[in-house]
């Protein structure tokens, strides 16, 4: 398949996913119990006031018209106003996006670098059945780290490094140091999972003939791992990285709450509790779109880096 054909298909799939996301976020308002017009007008509102609000929001229109209007507004980046505060949703998101972006970026960088590095090192150390003890410790450690929920990790980190040792801020984003514990909390589990995958992939690559040939040629270990093993193991890491990113965004929702960070995650929780549907819709749409786009990019990167994938998709 020609690269342009592949790219067109990929863009088509991404567009379809985004369209599905639009439908889901639109239906959110209509599928949840209760009347959104009552929510906006207030519980004390008279039936006339509720009717007026329904008309103002266009909720009295046929559903297909509402959907068309919704899509048109989304394309203009107009998500309406928060039911709770009356602020434009774009302002609400704008004021919180930076925090989540910083946390997610730091999280993905730490996850990918720690996961790949640890997985590669452990693969090298435990190749051909060597160092059984280290392998068992690694398996146990990564299982534990991968199983502990982010809020537990976050709480423990805060207790040890902030309350007991006093090295880092307990909460808030008063400076770069405020990002250290949240980043670790959000990265620990995905990094553990990723390192296991990279280790297995490393072992598989080391078992390949070209790797054996590299050793036989007495190439320096750094060259063997850097040139022959890493690029091949990285394909799996990248593929999993896309999924990790989705999980990591979910993790930020919890971690922002634990560390009192004013990001999209904490706003999402708050808005769900307050039935602030416009904000919930917009945040879900934004996070969902980020996941779809990142996975699309990951797929493109994997195709670019791995000739086997290129061959399989041609």
């Amino acid at each position, binding site marked *: 398949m020609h690269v342009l054909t592949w790219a067109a298909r990929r863009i088509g799939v991404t567009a379809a996913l985004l369209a599905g996301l639009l439908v889901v976020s639109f239906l959110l308002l209509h599928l949840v*119990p*209760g*009347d959104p017009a*009552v*929510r906006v*007008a*207030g*519980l*004390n*509102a008279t*039936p006339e*006031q509720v009717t007026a609000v329904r008309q103002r929001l266009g909720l009295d229109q046929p559903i297909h018209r509402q959907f068309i209007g919704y899509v048109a507004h989304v394309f203009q980046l107009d998500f309406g106003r928060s039911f*709770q*505060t*009356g*602020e434009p949703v774009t302002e*609400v998101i704008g*004021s*919180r996006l930076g925090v989540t972006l910083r946390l997610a970026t730091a999280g993905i960088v730490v996850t990918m670098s720690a996961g790949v590095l640890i997985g590669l090192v452990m693969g090298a150390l435990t190749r051909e059945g060597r160092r059984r003890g280290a392998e068992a410790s690694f398996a146990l450690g990564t299982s534990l780290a991968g199983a502990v929920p982010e809020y537990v990790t976050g*709480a423990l980190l*805060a*207790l040890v490094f*902030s*309350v007991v040792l*006093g090295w880092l*801020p*307990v*909460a*808030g*984003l008063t400076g770069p140091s405020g990002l250290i514990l949240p980043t670790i909390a959000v990265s620990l589990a995905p990094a553990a999972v990723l390192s296991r995958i990279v280790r297995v992939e490393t072992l598989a690559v080391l078992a390949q003939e070209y790797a054996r040939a590299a050793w036989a040629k007495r190439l320096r270990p750094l060259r063997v791992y850097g040139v022959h093993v890493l690029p091949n193991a990285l394909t799996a890491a990248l593929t999993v990285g896309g999924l990790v990113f989705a999980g990591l965004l979910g993790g930020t929702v919890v971690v922002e*709450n*634990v*560390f*009192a*960070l*004013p990001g999209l995650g*904490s*706003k999402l*929780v*708050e808005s*769900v*509790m*307050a*039935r602030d549907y416009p904000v919930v819709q917009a945040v879900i749409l934004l996070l969902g779109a980020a996941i779809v786009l990142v996975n699309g990019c990951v797929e493109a990167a994997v195709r670019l880096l791995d000739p086997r994938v290129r061959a399989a998709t041609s």
Partner: protein
Amino acid sequence: MAKAHGLSAPGAYSAPPSGPARARPRVLASVVMATALTAAGCGGAGTGKPAVDPAAPVVVRLNSDWDSLDPAKTRTTNGYQLVTALYDRVVAVEGDKVVPYLAESWKQTADSVTLILRKGVTCADGAELTPSAVAASLRRLGAEETGAPYANLVFGNAGHTVEADDAARTVTVRTNQPYSDLLIGLAQPMASIVCPAGLRSPAGLAAAPAGSGPYTLGGTTRGASYTLRARPGYGWGPAGHTGAYPREVTFRVVQNDSTAANMLGSGDLDLGWISGPDVRRAQSDTSLTAVTQAIYGSFFLVFNHAKGRPGADPALRAALAGAVSATDFNTSAFFGAGDPATSPVSPEVPCHTQVRSPVTAVDSAAVTRALAEAGWILEGGRLVRDGKPLTIRLLGSTDYAAGFEYVLEALHRTGASVELQLVELNGFAETLFKGGDWDVTVYPFTPLAPSLGALGLFVTGEAPPKGANFAGIRNPGFESAVAKAQASLGAERCAFWAEAQKTIVESADVVPLVHLKPHWFARAGLTARLAGGGTLVDLHHLSRS
């Protein structure tokens, strides 16, 4: 006239996103009861923890972000917390007494209050706050187009008028029916006085305050922190209070109780409300002083009286009321942070009367007998009457879900078939006040003022969707006693309120379970008072020693 429900406002309860122990009255502000939360000098010494810097800003926890800074529109305790610092009111409540504030004195009848306002009060923009301006603010609160959700907690339900006389420096509020709670109503946060600049552009009040209060809004990081700066020259606090105000008070939004407890321990917070299991951790920290005050109301069991509902039968209500233990509900919902309730209002409220011995241990045999007397017989472990099983739809809020799970279990043990519907707080309020499908619930009645009057607003009058009597209670004895109490100002008033409490509880229309006690913790060196039934910090009495 807008009607209040006690739920997402003065009277409502809310909790952080997860877990039963997180429950806390979010709204319900009442006004300034000021139980002294005196943390000063208690603890801290020798703990090895950092002492409070007397010149540093005081940092106070907000358990969630505010919804609006418009006194008439906010529905949350967090909104009221800032409103009470940015705005003044005509009167205030200290202890259980109404004290002067913007009004130097007043004359009260059963259906009117004439306030004589002090001179020299200025708004934050420098404009003079005249009686006409005060009256305009109160008129706006009561106007239908304002859509103030809790205006009736101030003025009652019968309509009112507001007049001003600038020459005599008076403002007179008259209600169309006797409403002796009017004066205390005017002390509540929603009755905060908005300055003329704010009234000219009311839409802006949501985020841009226009008050005459002791603080102005300084730095703001939405969703994270809000810094208030003391106004130089402010000297018209409640009861003539002119004490030193901290130069700066920062409210930090911390939703998670464990995080807040950590921040108190590390000194990142000076004062904060903690709930759930973290209370025990904070209590064991010797650098912190705990301050608790019961809410003015209670969490009470209430049945839907609508025709065809099981709760329409008084005998069945009384029987089932005996099946729910106040002690077990308190443990399940609040980790035991409250006291078993003996009345719909707490002992801090004037005219409180102990009218019920709380059920601390369920007498199953007595419950079965009472159910049999009501015609419900156990057959094969299920309660039936005339061949029909007893099925109950229990409405619960996720804010104290474990409490509702206990009620589910308790009612199930009687042989009833019980279905629990757990929804978040707004959905809970919507189901109740829009005539949704429910048979029984535990209602978080948490008024912001030490007044029995708020109770009457929720258990008398029309049922939803027309009124706020969400359970459709018809209790002529209670209504009569409330009407007499609201028409009285003398010593006989408490006798009428006692009769009202007795009538509403003995008929099992309202079954008080728990008076929750919010737990606040302050770092050593900080002196503060609580207001709003323990739900708010009174910034007029916040200082470092």
